[in-house]
């Protein structure tokens, strides 16, 4: 029990004294997760919208595939990316193994299916709701798509934050492709895993507290936005 209390005290000290190592790890985590989220959104939002509003042969197979990929085990993704970018792999010439770039790629593979699947469900629902109205008004496709995305903005924000949550809390893939190298690829989750195994619970716990704080803050913002949207019946 004493060890746990000491660990808590130490973690607060690290947080409130703005420990340099701690913030380096924190910033890298936010950078890797932020970039992978941005790239996943650039791919996932248009792809999800396309799957929602277009009918084509094999569409159901795509939806099943993306839904299944939402539950991809991170270590498997890490292993696949490792095999692809390792020196003997097809993309070994890029030289990105054990760099933040490889970590971004691994996280993108993990969160893009979430963005695609959930966006597709949301846009399909709203496009069904607006179908007759838009047909009657002869709304051009591009204006319809903009309207779907705009009117579903609160739900899509939830999707984006769900993707961010998956990225920032992920450890299995980034530890394999990033290597958890100090001052280069060490992020919050990999540090927690490492420091816990070394018995250095204070730093692990400090990072855990920050991770939880980030999750709490994003969820708090999300819930506030959703309450506001619900009051206006925008969701």
């Amino acid at each position, binding site marked *: 029990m004493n060890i746990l209390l000491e660990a808590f005290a130490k973690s607060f000290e690290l947080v409130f004294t703005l420990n340099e190592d701690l913030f380096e790890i924190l910033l890298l985590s936010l950078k890797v997760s932020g970039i992978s989220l941005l790239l996943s959104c650039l791919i996932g939002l248009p792809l999800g919208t396309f799957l929602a509003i277009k009918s084509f042969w094999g569409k159901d197979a795509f939806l099943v595939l993306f839904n299944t990929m939402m539950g991809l085990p991170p270590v498997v993704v890490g292993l696949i990316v490792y095999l692809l970018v390792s020196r003997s792999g097809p993309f070994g010439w890029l030289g990105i193994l054990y760099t933040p770039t490889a970590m971004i790629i691994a996280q993108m593979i993990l969160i893009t299916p979430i963005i695609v699947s959930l966006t597709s469900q949301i846009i399909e629902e709203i496009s069904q709701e607006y179908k*007759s109205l838009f047909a*009657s008004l002869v*709304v*051009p496709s591009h*204006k319809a798509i903009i309207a779907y995305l705009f009117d579903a903005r609160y739900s899509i924000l939830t999707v984006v934050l769900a993707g961010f949550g998956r990225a920032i809390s992920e450890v299995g893939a980034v530890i394999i492709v990033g290597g958890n190298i100090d001052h280069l690829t060490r992020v919050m989750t990999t540090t927690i895993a490492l420091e816990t195994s070394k018995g250095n619970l204070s730093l692990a716990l400090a990072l855990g507290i920050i991770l939880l704080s980030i999750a709490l803050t994003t969820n708090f913002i999300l819930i506030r936005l959703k309450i506001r949207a619900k009051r206006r019946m*925008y969701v």
Partner: protein
Amino acid sequence: MYKSNKKNLMKLTPIEVIDLSVSLGKDLILDKVSCSIKNNSITVVIGPNGAGKSIFLQTINGLTNIDNGKITFNKIYNNDEIRNKQAMVFQTPTLLRRNVKSNMDFVSNVKNKNGKLIIKNILKRVGLEGYDNKPARLLSGGEKQRLSLARALFIEPSVLLLDEPTANLDPFSLKLIEEIILEESKKGATIILTTHDMAQAKRLASDIIFFNKGKILEQTDANVFFRNPLTKEAKKYINGEILL
């Protein structure tokens, strides 16, 4: 109060419906329906639930696929140009997840028609002045239907299709919507509306189309219809009896 603006309306009438059949899945909803909608008429489509009235309106608006038969507007088949001059008000209004003003702005954007002042005037006309920032889906049933009508009016339609526009509405909304229908008719629009309200049909209709089981049993002048309906089904319907 409202300027007559007949010359700007594209002529889409007469609307000729010839041997029109429409199915939804395996169900035949409209069965070889034929009728003619006169220019500048207020045609009220009546009939029991499930008779095919709403699908008839939606088919005129190009929202359903036709199995057989045809619809022509002043001898031209339906196309996007014609559909752009029609406006439809649905029984259950679909409003965008935005405020009142943005719902109107959306139509303005879709139709590439800048109409800040027009929107202001139309919202005033439908009794929604000062509602600009109110979320559209928080409006009451009557207000929602009036906003839906406002969107239709913005289009300045040659043909205005109204599917039970006053069902379950308060007397104020009902009166206002009926007044607007008559005003639009005076301005030159051709109106087709469905209703179960016989008193409303008598107040508004110049022509009546009576539907039963996917067929048109009567199309006639409203005065003639209510004075002397030709079919026993129409007589029963007017008297409030159940049609089997």
